[in-house]
Structure formats: C-alpha cells, structure tokens
C-alpha cells in the first residue's frame, strides 16, 4: 500500500464514526491550542518588554520608596521615610555619572478649550529632564524649564494626540487651556511617540511638577517632610558605571533620610529588575499553560490509544481478512498507526485553529498582547504527530500480532 491508499483507508475508517473521532481528538485539540496560546502570550510579553526597553532608554534607574507595610494592629502604612522632591535636586547635583533625573506626580484632569472638553486626561507634573529620561521628542515649542518648575508657572506641554483634539488645524503654542478650571498656557507640543511600555505619551499633558503639588495634588505631610514623590527616574550617563551610580545614590539618600544602608527606606531598581518582575508575572501564567498543554496532550494521547484499542477489537475480523488476502503484520501495523496519526494530526489542525483564534480573543479580552509565532504552529503539529505515533503504537502492535485464523473466527 502506498501513502495515498493508506490515507484513504484511514480517512474512511475515521469518518465512519465521526462523533467518536471528534471526541477522541478533543484532548489533542485542547493541548495544541494551549501550546499555541502559551507561545503567543510569551511572545507578546517579550515584544512588550523589548519595546519597554527601547521606549525608556536603557540606562534608567527607578528609585521607589520602601514602605513598611502596616499590620492590622499597626494601622496604616508607616508614613515615615519615602522620597521627597528635594531628593531629585540632590541626586542631580551630588551624584556623578547622572545624565538626567526626573520625577512625576500625576493627576487626572478635565481639559477644556472653548467648546471642546476632554475628561480624564492624565496630567504629568515633571521636571525638565523628563525628555531625556523618558526619551520623548519635542514636536514644536519647548518643554518646561527649570525656572517654570521652581515658580510653578501655569504652562503646559501637550501630547500630540491631545493637541490635535484641542486645536485641530491651528497652532496651539501660546493658546490657553483649562485644566480643572486652572488656566494654562501652551508652550510646546510633543512629537508623536505612540504607545510605549504601556504608556500612551500622546494622550497626556505635561506641566511643572510644583504646579501639580500646589494646584492639583498636594503631597501629604509636605509641611514636615517636603513634597513626597512616588518614583524618581535617573538616567545614567552611558560612560558611567551603573553600579557605581547606584552606590552613590544609595549613600546620598541614606544620609538625607537618616537611615542605614542595611534597611533603606527606598529601592533602586534597574531596567533589568523591572524586566524580571514583568517576566515573572507572565512566567507563572506561561508555566500553567505549559502544564495544561502537556497534560491535555498526554490525556488526548491516552484517549487515542483507548479508541484505537477498541477499534482493533471491533475490527478483528477485518484484520484477519486483510491478513488472509496478503496484508503482512507490518501492513496492519502501518494501517492502524496511520489512523492514530490521522486522529492526532486532525486534532492538531483543529487545535491550531482554536489556538490562533483563542490567542486573538484572549489578546483582545485581557489587553495582554499576543503574537502568533509560526514556529509554535510547527511545534504543535510536531507534538500532535508525536502523540499519535507514541500512543498509536501499542494498538497497532496489538492488531499486527493478531493470528489470522483466530481473527477470522472472531465474532
């Protein structure tokens, strides 16, 4: 028998019991779909991370406050410590090898120009180094300067998309906008940057940080501790030693906050720390899917083996007859193996369709990015084939070992 005949015979035998064949394939379908979705999700995560790296610039440090978490008896989080606004200036002036330091204080505001109103716009209060640190380009005009930050001047830089919405067809520079009824003068517009590391820079507006502290979100305990900030971004000079800079900042902040280096009230994270955190969150999800994929492929394989064993018993007479008219044990083995293989491969094809569809659906529902990788399709097809051969072997062997006389006598 040649390959085409084998395929025809196997196909005929499987289609003669469609429901059973479909149910048998289900395990493989789920397994293959899980393989594809798993790879699509991890590829999507990797793409997001690599974009985050290019979007943030590679030599970035993140300094965050290390709050002691309050227990039920201890009340709310310990308010001592944390980062204050004056730390920013201290790092910039006292640490060598720093290209820029920026800080952000965000608020959600309603922006209004004439009849145009946009709700829930993210307003970022920041410092002049923001453009260096976050790697954003100015489209027209300029970014906020040192003096405007110091005096909390009512100036604003618009993201490109916001500028388009507020001032369609006109130059926004010099115009004024209202943010929560505070009148701001537009001094610049950013160049379009798009979505980067989960942040859409085009849909935000940028103001001097002190303006946010004074007019929008006063920081708590400002009177005692200075203006508290959540994250300080430090862009390290490309020629400087990253670890050296981290050590300098640690000593400086420890001194300023009057804490020991062993139990600092701040954390310094590098880009790679952030990547690791992101990866670990998706890693657990990926390993779960890998288990689902592996287990369903095995269960699917056992299902195939089970059905093939039933099929061998049901078709004992047919096997006997085929042997009588010249089928060798090898011929019989190949026939049943190809049926098992066909079951698993059809399961694989349906699984690929389900996996691709499921990845797209998952991507749009969860907001996580999914990327269909061609090799995942090849991999899942290969693993389906492997399952078919592995679990089809025993039934095929059983069929081949049947004695033609006994088989023909079988009722």
């Amino acid at each position: 028998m040649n390959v085409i005949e084998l395929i025809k015979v196997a196909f005929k035998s499987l289609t003669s019991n469609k429901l059973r064949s479909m149910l048998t394939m289900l395990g493989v379908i789920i397994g293959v779909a899980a393989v594809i979705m798993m790879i699509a999700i991890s590829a999507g995560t990797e793409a997001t991370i690599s974009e985050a790296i290019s979007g943030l610039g590679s030599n970035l440090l993140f300094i965050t406050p290390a709050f002691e978490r309050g227990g039920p008896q201890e009340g709310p989080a310990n308010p001592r410590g944390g980062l204050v606004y004056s730390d920013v200036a201290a790092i910039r002036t006292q640490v060598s090898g720093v290209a820029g330091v920026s800080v952000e204080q965000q608020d959600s505001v309603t922006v209004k120009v004439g009849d145009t109103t946009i709700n829930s716009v993210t307003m970022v209060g920041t410092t002049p180094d923001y453009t260096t640190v976050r790697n954003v380009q100015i489209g027209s005009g300029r970014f906020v300067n040192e003096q405007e930050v110091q005096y909390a001047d009512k100036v604003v830089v618009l993201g490109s998309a916001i500028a388009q919405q507020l001032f369609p067809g006109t130059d926004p520079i010099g115009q004024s906008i209202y943010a929560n009824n505070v009148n701001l003068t537009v001094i610049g517009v950013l160049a379009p940057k798009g979505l980067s590391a989960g942040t859409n820079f085009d849909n935000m507006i940028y103001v001097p940080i002190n303006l946010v502290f004074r007019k929008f979100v006063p920081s708590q305990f400002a009177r005692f501790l200075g203006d508290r900030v959540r994250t300080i971004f430090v862009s390290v000079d490309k020629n400087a030693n990253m670890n050296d800079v981290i050590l300098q900042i640690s000593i400086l902040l420890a001194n300023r906050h009057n804490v020991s280096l062993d139990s600092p009230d701040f954390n310094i994270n590098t880009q790679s720390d952030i990547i690791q955190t992101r990866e670990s969150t998706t890693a657990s999800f990926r390993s779960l899917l890998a288990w689902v994929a592996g287990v369903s492929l095995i269960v699917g394989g056992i299902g195939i083996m089970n059905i093939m064993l039933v099929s061998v018993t049901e078709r004992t007479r047919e096997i006997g007859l085929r042997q009588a008219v010249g089928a060798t044990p090898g011929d019989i083995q190949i026939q049943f193996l190809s049926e098992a293989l066909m079951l698993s491969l059809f399961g694989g094809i349906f699984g690929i369709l389900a996996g691709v569809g499921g990845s797209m659906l998952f991507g749009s529902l969860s907001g996580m990015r999914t990327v269909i990788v061609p090799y995942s399709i090849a991999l899942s097809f290969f693993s389906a084939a492997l399952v078919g051969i592995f679990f089809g072997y025993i039934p095929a062997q059983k069929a081949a070992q049947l004695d033609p006389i006994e088989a023909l006598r079988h009722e």
Partner: protein
Amino acid sequence: MERDILIETVDLKKVYGEGEGQVIALDGINLQIDNGEFVAIMGPSGSGKSTLMNILGCMDRPTEGKYILAGEDVSEYDRTDLAQIRGQFLGFVFQSYNLLPRMTALENVMMPMMYHRERRTTSEERLEKAVEVLQKVGLGERIDHLPSELSGGQQQRVAIARALINDPLVIFADEPTGNLDSRSGEELMELLDALHQSGKTIVMVTHDENIARHTERIIHILDGKLAYDRKNGHKPLGLVQSAPSEAGQTQAPDEVQISSEGEKS
C-alpha cells in the same frame, strides 16, 4: 506425462498444546495435489480438516513435516513471508463471505491488489481488473453496492472475485456454500466448476456430499489422518499410504450414489 504437482505435504503434523493437554490435530498427512485439480477435503468436525486447510492456505505452520507449495518449502516461513505468499499465490473463499461491510463490492475486490508487493498497480489498473473479474463471476451490475445490499449468493460471488483478483495458483474455499440456500449453492458450485474448467486449482472444505460431488477428487480426513483419497466416483488413488478406514470404504460411495439419485428425482 509428467505430473505437475502444485501442493505436496510430507508427513505433516500439527500439535496444539503441550504435555497432558496435548491435542494432535494432524498426524502425518502425505498429500499431493496437481495443478488444475478440483479437490474436496471432507471429514467430521474435529477431524483436522480445518487445520489441514489452514496449513495448506499458509495461514498456519505445521509443527512437523514439510509443506511444499509450487516447489518451495514454506514450512519454516515467518508471518510476513506467509502473508506475501497468501497475497500473491493463494485465494480464499470463506463460509461467511467476510466482505468488509463499509466497502462496496468493487472496493472489496480491489483490496488484495493493494497488498501485492511484486505487482504494483495504479488505482485505474485495479479498477479495470476488478470490473473484469466481477464480470467473470457473473456480477457485472451492482458492483457499487455495499455487501449488505447484496444477496448471499451475490456476496459469495464478490468473495470469489476477490480471491481471483491476484491470479492465484490455487483457491481455497472453506464451506463456500455453507451459508447459502440450495439453489444459490448450486449456482455457486457451477461457478467454481467453470473456474476449474478454465484451469484453476481449487481446494474446498465441505461436509456436504452434494457439494463434494462437483469435485473430481475427495480427500477424507479422520482423527488427523488421511482416511481415504479417491477420484470422485472412481477407484481410490494409489498414493494413499494410511489404510482407509472401513467406514470410509463402505459409506462414502453409497452417499454419493444416494445424493445423485436424489438430484435426478
């Protein structure tokens, strides 16, 4: 004229089981069947005739002795070799037809050609040959029907066509009329007669004297031994070595006589 021996067994023995429970199914069968003969193997159930048939049909191997088919000693062949011998040189007709139920008559007939390793055929060649053979057995129509849509006689004709498809040296028929009514049985025997007339060697197992009457030679097996071996209605052949049993000598010709009369009346 030199005899053209197709099938020859030398002291053929088949033993099932071991020790106390040992059953001797065949106990030294010496047999020769010439090319072109039409032979009936008869005997009561348990006599070993089915075992003999299985060994002659290369479905089973003898425990002892030799089986020489077309000049080749096949007694020691393995399962794969025997399967190929069956596919290329032997044809089988069974009592219960054994057609594959999901295949049409035509597909059933074509099936053995796919297992023929020495003669590779395209599906067109197979189709052509199968139609030709089906016409030869008198089944030109209904060839696209499933076995369940055919009468018993028609199904057995399909089975004979399947047996003929690879141009076998010999056809083994195991109670071919056993599941048929007497009229279909007669028609089937006429078909086998015709095949024999055209030169086919046929070995048939039957317990029906009426059916055995169509053959030209009857071999009787009793307790694993050759009871007698005679030309149908003629004197026993000289090559029988074991002494014919008395029952065989007296009964069998009578039975033939009676059944012949019954047919005439």
